[in-house]
C-alpha cells in the first residue's frame, strides 16, 4: 500500500461529487418520466432537483479548477479532471431536460394520449443515464462502447416515432401530439448527453478522442 499523493485527496472528492450527480440525475429523470406516465404534477420537485444539479456542476468545475491550479496535473490525472468537468455539465443538462419533460405534464389532456413510444424510449434512456454513470465510476471502456450502440437504438426509435406522429397529424389531439413530440425530443437529447458521458469516460481511460 503506497502513500496517497496530495492530489489524490482532491480527485477522490471530485469523484464523490460526480457520484452524487449520477444518483441525483437518475432520480430526477425517473420522477419526470413518472409524472408523464402517471399524469402527476411534479414540476416543482423536478425543478428543485435540476437546480441542485446545476449547483453541483458549478461546485465540481470549481474544484477541478482548484486542482489544476494547485497540482498542475498531467497524464491520467489531467484527463480525469477534464472528464469530470464535461461529465458534470452533461448531468446538469440531463437535469434541465428532465425539468422540461416534467413541465409538459401540465399541458397533457386528461384523456386520449397514447404514451407507448414515450414509455419505450424513456426506459432505454433512463438505463443509458444510469449505465453512463457506472461506466464512468468503474472506468469501464466496454460499457462506454455499449452506450454508443444504445444511442443508435435511441436515434432509430426516435426517428420512427416521429414519423408515426407526423402520419397521425390531424387524427389525434394536437396537445397530445405536441406533448409526445417534445418529450421524445428531450429524451433523445438526454441520450446524446449520456453518450457524451461515455465519450468523456473513454477519453479519460485511453487518452483518445471519441
Amino acid at each position, binding site marked *: 500500500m503506497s502513500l496517497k499523493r496530495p492530489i489524490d485527496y482532491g480527485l477522490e472528492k471530485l469523484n464523490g461529487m460526480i457520484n452524487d450527480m449520477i444518483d441525483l440525475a437518475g432520480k430526477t429523470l425517473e420522477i419526470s418520466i413518472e409524472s408523464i406516465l402517471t399524469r402527476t404534477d411534479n414540476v416543482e420537485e423536478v425543478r428543485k432537483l435540476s437546480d441542485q444539479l446545476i449547483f453541483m456542476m458549478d461546485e465540481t468545475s470549481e474544484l477541478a479548477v482548484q486542482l489544476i491550479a494547485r497540482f498542475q496535473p*498531467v*497524464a*491520467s*490525472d*489531467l484527463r480525469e479532471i477534464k472528464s469530470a468537468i464535461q461529465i458534470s455539465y452533461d448531468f446538469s443538462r440531463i437535469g434541465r431536460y428532465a425539468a422540461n419533460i416534467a413541465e409538459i405534464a401540465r399541458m397533457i389532456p386528461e384523456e386520449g394520449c397514447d404514451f407507448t413510444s414515450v414509455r419505450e424510449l424513456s426506459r432505454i434512456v433512463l438505463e443509458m443515464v444510469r449505465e453512463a454513470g457506472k461506466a464512468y465510476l468503474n472506468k469501464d471502456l466496454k460499457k462506454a462502447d455499449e452506450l454508443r450502440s444504445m444511442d443508435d437504438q435511441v436515434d432509430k426509435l426516435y426517428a420512427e416515432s416521429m414519423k408515426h406522429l407526423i402520419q397521425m397529424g390531424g387524427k389525434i389531439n394536437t396537445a397530445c401530439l405536441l406533448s409526445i413530440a417534445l418529450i421524445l425530443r428531450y429524451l433523445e437529447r438526454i441520450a446524446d448527453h449520456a453518450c457524451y458521458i461515455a465519450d468523456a469516460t473513454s477519453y479519460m481511460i485511453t487518452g483518445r478522442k471519441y
Partner: protein
Amino acid sequence: MSWAIEVQNLNVWYGDKHIIKNVSFRVPKNVIFAIMGPSGCGKSTLLRAMNRLLDLNPHARVEGQVKINGVNIYGDNVDVTWVRRQFGMVFQIPNPFPHLSIYENVALGPKLNGLVKDKSQLDELVKQALQKAYLWDEVKNDLRKPASMLSGGQQQRLCIARALALKPRIILMDEPTANLDPVASSKIEELLLELKEDYTIIIVTHNPQQAARVSDYVAFLYMGELIEIGETSTVFTRPSNILTEKYVLGRMG
C-alpha cells in the same frame, strides 16, 4: 530531416556497472529536448556521453555512436577539441571562475581559442553573449567586478553567456535550475525558449514539471533504459508506457 544530434545504440559502463543500456534517439535542430528520470537513472551520464566528457573518467567505457552533422564523435581521427567546441555545457551548480571578472569569465574561452583578432572584437563578443543570456543590462556597469558578487541566478546566466561565447551548436544543461530559487529558475526557463531560436538545447531535469513547461520533446530514462520518447504535449497527456505514466504522476518509488 537533418538532426542536431543522433545517438545510436549507446552503452556506458562504469567499471562493471552498466549505466546506459543501448539507448538510441535523435534530436531535431532548434528544439528543447528534455531528458527526465529519477535520480540515478543515468541522465547525467547520458549527457556527458554526448560531448565525450566521459573521456575524462578513467572508469567509464562507452560503446555506440553519437553523431553531429553525420560525424560520429567516437569515430577514429575525430578531434576531441572539435567535439567539445560543438557543445556548450551548463551544470547544476553555477560554476563561474569566481575570482575572474564578469568580463573575463566570458572572454577567456574566445581568447584561448583564438576566436577574436583584437580587443574591440572581444568586447563585442562578450557583450553579445551577455545580451543573449539576458544578463547584459544587469552587469554592464560592473564588468570588471568579480563573478562571485553575482546572485546564483545571475551566475548561472553568466555560465550560459560563457558557453554561448564559444559559438556552440548544441547546449547541454544538467539540471541548470536545481540550485536556484523559483524566480531565478523562471528566468532561466524563459531564456531557454529564446535560445532555441539559435541553438539546440538538451536539458536534463529531475523535475517533470520543468520538462513539461519548457521542452518540445521529452525522453524518459529509467535505470539506464530509454523508456519513452515523444512530443512533450503527448507524453504529458497520454504517455504510452506505464512507467512513464507513474513517473509523471509522481507515483514512482
